[in-house]
């Protein structure tokens, strides 16, 4: 299999291969999560990113692991793409002591601060003010890090969005604001919550650069984040990237989806980012099948690891509140 030096001008072949693996893995993780939920093995809620996998792959690959990630409630893909370990992630999902958060956080709060992954966030837009602090900290410490900050279309109507982008702009903070516009905030369609066509136009309120890109195209996401990160590292401040995408599943486990049509969902399922990326990087069906098998094994092992892991001990119930 001969491939050009950098596929699509962006990725080395094995890097591309790895990204594809991550996308397939994310989807499999979430499909498996659904099943476990149905079987009553998980409680609480969860937010699946199936259909949106290109953004995590494109974004994380454009940054170094010395950068920071500020994730959302729909963040399994980003967690994996940042380098999260599947076993410990699965354990967290099952609320086990071996989970990233010792079973205290669950899907909505999964974090790995040691690897600069500052966590998923159950509060819509809750990570946006935090990003300001991360940006300031980078600036004061004079490193060349960047803070990748994810949020949804819905989040960009919270007051926190406004304060965060304004502060980042006036201080030229090294933040990449990456809005995953999947056209809905829970049941609320984009055009019911906005009187504008594109969220990226809001960049003009802060005198920063804003772009809207195809969020189902790993290349487009990678390129936009790479360029934004470059600007940020040079001291040119934040960028607002709006990546257009779609979630195939309901908002969370309890969603009847009365707010959208089956046709619309189907239309978007045809824009599946996974085969699209596979085709673009020249991965054929056999190779794809190999990846799927690998993923299946990995998931199975992770489930085993998680299920064999101990529950948190009741005697530790008050641990971790204070340092």
């Amino acid at each position, binding site marked *: 299999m001969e491939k050009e030096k950098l596929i699509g001008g962006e990725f080395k072949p094995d890097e591309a291969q790895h990204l594809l693996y991550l996308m397939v893995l994310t989807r499999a993780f979430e499909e498996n999560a659904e099943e476990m939920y149905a079987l009553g093995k998980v409680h609480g809620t969860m937010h699946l990113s199936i259909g949106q996998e290109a953004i995590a792959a494109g974004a994380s690959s454009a940054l170094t692991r010395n950068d920071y990630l500020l994730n959302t409630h729909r963040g399994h893909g980003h967690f994996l793409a940042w380098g999260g370990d599947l076993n410990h992630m699965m354990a967290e999902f099952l609320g086990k002591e071996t989970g990233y958060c010792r079973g205290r956080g669950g899907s909505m709060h999964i974090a790995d601060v040691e690897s600069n992954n500052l966590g998923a966030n159950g509060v819509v837009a809750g990570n946006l003010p935090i990003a300001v602090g991360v940006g300031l900290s980078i600036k004061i410490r004079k490193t060349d890090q960047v803070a990748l900050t994810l949020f949804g279309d819905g989040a960009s109507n919270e007051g926190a969005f406004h304060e965060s982008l304004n502060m980042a702009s006036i201080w030229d903070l090294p933040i990449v604001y990456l809005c995953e516009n999947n056209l809905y905030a829970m*049941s609320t369609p984009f055009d019911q919550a906005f009187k504008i066509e594109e969220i990226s136009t809001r960049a003009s309120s802060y005198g920063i650069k804003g772009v809207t890109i195809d969020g189902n195209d790993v290349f487009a996401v990678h390129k936009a984040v790479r360029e934004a990160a470059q600007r940020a590292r040079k001291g040119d401040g934040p960028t607002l990237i709006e990546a257009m995408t779609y979630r195939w599943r309901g908002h969370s486990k309890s969603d009847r989806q009365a707010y959208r049509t089956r046709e619309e969902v189907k239309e978007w399922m045809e824009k599946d980012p996974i085969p699209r990326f596979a085709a673009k990087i020249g991965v054929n069906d056999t190779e794809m099948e190999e990846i799927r098998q690998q993923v299946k094994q990995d998931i199975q092992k992770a489930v085993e690891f998680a299920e064999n892991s101990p529950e948190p001990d009741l005697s530790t119930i008050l641990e971790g509140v204070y340092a």
Partner: protein
Amino acid sequence: MRELTYREALYEALDQVMKKDERVFVIGEDIGVYGGAFGVTADLQQKYGKERIIDTPISEAGIAGACVGAAITGMRPVGEIMFSDFVVLSMEQLVLQAAKMRFMFGGKAKVPMVLRLPEGSGTGASAQHSGSYENWFVHVPGLKVVMPSTPYDAKGLLLASIEDDNPVIFCEHKLLYKTKGPVPEEMYTIPLGKSNIVREGKDITIVATSVEVMRSLEAADQLAKEGIEVEVIDPRTINPLDMEPITKSAIKTGKVLVVHEAAKTGGFGGELVSRIMESEAFAYLDAPVRRLAGLDTPIPYNRNLEYHTVPQVENIVEEARKIVQGVY
């Protein structure tokens, strides 16, 4: 009498009052087609249209503000915060505007609004979606705070809250939505500021709120088998707080246990304990008034830890028994 769930009782209250009173509207996130995260508004948007069942962007400060502005200009808004936790984003409008406005304006404004907050743990929603913050609002003069524990109370208290000319924080509990109980079909109100003696007994008084009323009643059943007769009192409105039945009961039993789900430290239990101590009941106490409340920790995700973070039936049984047995 016909039985409804707590959720249905709230729905019916909204439906009936909206039919009757054009000034009432409901505003919140995903309360239209979706029917609200806990289904309380169900199909009300189909019945009353998008102008009276208003889906908002994700803007909790805006929702609270929308209630304040509408209330002072003649409407009777009912706001919904999807999870009580997100009321942190509405605090400015609630505390600095709604609560103080009438006072600051020399008693010349009215702010008749209700903000509904689904509180509590027990659904695996973890630390940012399981909070109980009612005592914050008790601590804000100008607000009223209501906590229904049954479907009957839910309907009657919601209607009374909407009728009230003051801002009311209406704390529901997620685990109660599916509980069932008798609910009259007609409209009725339960006056704000009236405690309810839910069960009579002579050995110990349990004052409990919201979901802990249900648990306390179960605990009382169990204790009855041991020959301990528990009196259970539900204040229903925690500000204003009707102390009279509580004081009387404390005088009768000489022993009081206060139970709430919110974290113990800084919680509403402290207010209750103090009021009892400040009352004539103090002289009659055989034992210190005890608080059984949530542990001082965020709500964990793990099911077992979550369960043990807040008072369960067995904890109430044990604590009440200890008090009766004179352990303290």
